[in-house]
């Protein structure tokens, strides 16, 4: 048996701008980052997928709306349905919502402005492969950088989300208290990250990829990227 690094496909749309950062983070966590172009109809043999942040197709129409219908997303859907791990960050989460791989939708931030801010996050699930390196109740600190991160779901959808425990991360205080004062964008139930029922798809608004290298700040992003690499 030969040693190999897991191949993680980093999807590149026109307008992706955290793709290079995501690739470096994957490499730092021991994976082999493979750029996958949006027009590609197959995933080039990767075993895990990362959809990075940015403004795919310039966020025209709605953030993530056009990317959700790109050729590569057909392949990502097939990969996810077969149980393959998928991590979507920021615009990546918006795309996963638009593609129906995660529940709910994104609205513009309550302030209607772009917000870049260090936020605290409370881990709500630790029993899925992509959250396996975290503990429930643990408080993390990561930056958010978005204009449309106000997650919303109609009551019947939200009930299902709660019943199936799909909320992965919530905005909170440094002490882990969830309250409106610590909700930066108005997201319903302070949702900052979501998983699917099977646990192989995770989407999050905060940016773990820029907090993997401890040199750039406390490496609270590492558990997310490292988990993706390990389970792929």
């Amino acid at each position, binding site marked *: 048996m030969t040693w190999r690094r897991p191949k993680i496909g980093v999807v590149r749309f*026109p307008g992706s701008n955290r793709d*290079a950062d995501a690739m470096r983070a994957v490499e730092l966590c021991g994976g082999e980052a493979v750029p996958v172009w949006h027009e590609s109809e197959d995933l080039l043999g990767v075993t895990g997928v990362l959809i990075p942040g940015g403004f795919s197709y*310039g*966020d025209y129409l709605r953030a993530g709306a056009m990317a959700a219908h790109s050729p590569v997303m057909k392949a990502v859907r097939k990969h996810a349905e077969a149980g393959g791990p998928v991590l979507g960050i920021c615009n990546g989460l918006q795309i996963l919502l638009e593609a129906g791989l995660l529940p709910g939708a994104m609205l513009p931030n309550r302030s209607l*402005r*772009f917000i*870049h801010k260090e936020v605290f996050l409370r881990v709500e699930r630790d029993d899925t492969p992509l959250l396996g390196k975290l503990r429930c109740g643990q408080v993390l600190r990561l930056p958010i950088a978005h204009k449309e991160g106000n997650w919303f779901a109609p009551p019947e959808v939200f009930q299902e989300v709660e019943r199936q425990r799909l909320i992965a991360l919530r905005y909170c205080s440094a002490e882990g208290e969830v309250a409106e004062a610590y909700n930066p964008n108005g997201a319903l139930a302070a949702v900052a990250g979501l998983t699917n029922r099977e646990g192989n798809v995770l989407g999050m608004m905060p940016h773990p990829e820029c907090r993997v290298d401890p040199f750039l700040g406390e490496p609270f992003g590492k558990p997310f990227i490292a988990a993706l690499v390990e389970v792929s």
Partner: protein
Amino acid sequence: MKRWDDGAELADALDHGLSPQEWERLLTALGRTPNLTELGIFAALWSEHCSYKSSRVHLTNLPTSGPRVVQGPGENAGAVDIGEGWVAVFKVESHNHPSFIEPYQGAATGVGGILRDVFTMGARPVMLLDSLRFGELSLPRMRYLVDGVVRGIGDYGNCVGVPTLGGEVDFDPAYNGNILVNAMCVGVARKDKLFFARAQGAGNRVIYLGSKTGRDGIHGATMASDTFDETAEQKRPTVQVGDPFTEKLLIEACLELMEKGLVVAIQDMGAAGLTSSAFEMAARGGCGLELDLSRVPVRAEGMTPYELMLSESQERMLLVARPQDVQEIFAICHRWGLDACDIGEVVEGREVVAYWKGELAFRLPVAPLVDAAPRYERPFQLPPSPSAVTLPSFSGRNFSEDLRRLLASPHLGSKRAVYQQYDQTVGAATLAGPGGEAALVLVPGTRIGLAATTDCNAFACSLDPYAGAAQAVVEALRNLACVGAEPVGVTDCLNFGSPENPQVMGQFVAAVQGLGDACRALGVPVVSGNVSFYNETSGQAILPTPTVGMVGVVPWVLHRPRFTLRDGDLVALLGPVVGQLNGSRYLQLVWDIKAGVIPHPDYQGEKTAAELVRSLVRLGLVAARDISDGGLAVILAEMCDEIGVRVSIPGDVSPASFLFGEWGPRYLLAFPERFQEAVAAAAEGVPFLIVGRAEGDALVVVHDDEELIWLSLVELAHLREQGLRFLEET
């Protein structure tokens, strides 16, 4: 109304902003009467904005060479060696006039333009900074302008994916009719992979790349070379519209084309669009161009050669390539979803010839347009030397209240409401962003730290443009020192009123001298820059605002710099114990005294102190902030984040000068007690005094056992957010 190919006459020249003398000069240079399109081209290239006709004779006084300089002024941006085969490519540019007319698009396209100047050189942009000046916030329109400019900068930079990591925001009634938006971009490139705007090789193709050409921005360059009156609003159609998504595609496509060796020369279509890119590339390359304007992609029906040549539609590039590479270039551009087409070729001789629908549109010699543009030695009157003000009596003064007023002002409060709208972490290389002293990023794949700052105290420049400009340079030096960086180059954005006013011209001349003298004294070359004149409305000029953008290097970053106190830190004052109150923000903002002498920098003292601070920061021993706007008390407040501080003023010292004095190589250092010996030993030979300790939950200053200032952390945080709170009330 005249057609594009009708002959022009004096009245048309005047309409285009040329003087009667310039019209005569044009006729002599050309040896015939131009048609309207040719006149438009002359007027654009001879505008103040493109030709620097009033400033050029003075700009020659700036030092532009040095061992690190790879490219000085004259290209799209300057480039300096930062080690390990890398160069930093940077420039600052103004977008003042458009931003006043249409703040969102004006500011956004300012960012777009400066990004293109940098990636055109083959450099990947790694950070943006913005130096902004606004008028009184009590004017409703001014709040709209601040909001629009900040959104425009944010939406453009955020989408393109370049972090905005620094800059300044300040306010003065002198900007009520002319706001300033100066955008700076810093990029990195391999030293042997720089690209230039020099058209070369007869037979090579001229490729148009990017957005289609529309009617937006026609006359942008001439508009930016004129003053405003009450009809400024009517100039809205001359403002361009930005599309950051296309810009992002352009960056990736251009860098890929360059990486693959497919580019001979490249230039963005900025001010004066196709006109300036074509003529400047031909001028620098010493060749001619033959263009077919019918092939330019258009987004509007029936555009004439006049409009095609003068449109300032954004996100467009012109490049020169070998004929055999054209198909590959098209394939790459197509993959990025960009329009690219072949619109002409490089030819022998020194003429630009353009055809349209098979007929000759114009034939113009390059030399008189670019090289022989008018140069003026405008009459100037140097500003009078300011006289010192008599200081008021400070006995019994409530300094807590004074500090409250300073912190609650938009001038000296937190700028968080602004920079929170800017992406600061994209690129995953940010070591220090806004809210600190200077921006610091890692050059990708290395441990080289690249730092940048913009500085200008325009209030000081209004009192003494020479000393004010020189002080801006040393302040930039101090800011870089606080992140451990050594300066390697300067870019400047010189914002002034009308050069036709001898007093304004005098301010300009003095400021350029101050800038040049300071850069020479510190051994830092000026490698790029921009002059923005005619920032005046109905005869009211702005404060002289020579913005200094300084770039520095940390050869090998060991520690991420910090700027706030930690529990138990000792706080030391490095440099003179007191500052001068003359020309201070304290006298200006609290006492309404807008006069005083601005001292000339003590260059030797500044160099020594900066070198010391730089090494302490590099070793991770101290958190450092320099004492500038607002004085020590304001800087101390900025350092209080999670923990309070207690500072004692030495008994024999005037509290006001200690707390609010400015100027000179003064820094506040904070460090754990265990480093005290090391820091004190390193500081030998430089005035160094431990003044306090980080503790408790308030900022406390005592003098002779008397508590002069007591402000709780909660109140401090609240006060510092006051000034720009309106930005968060939608």
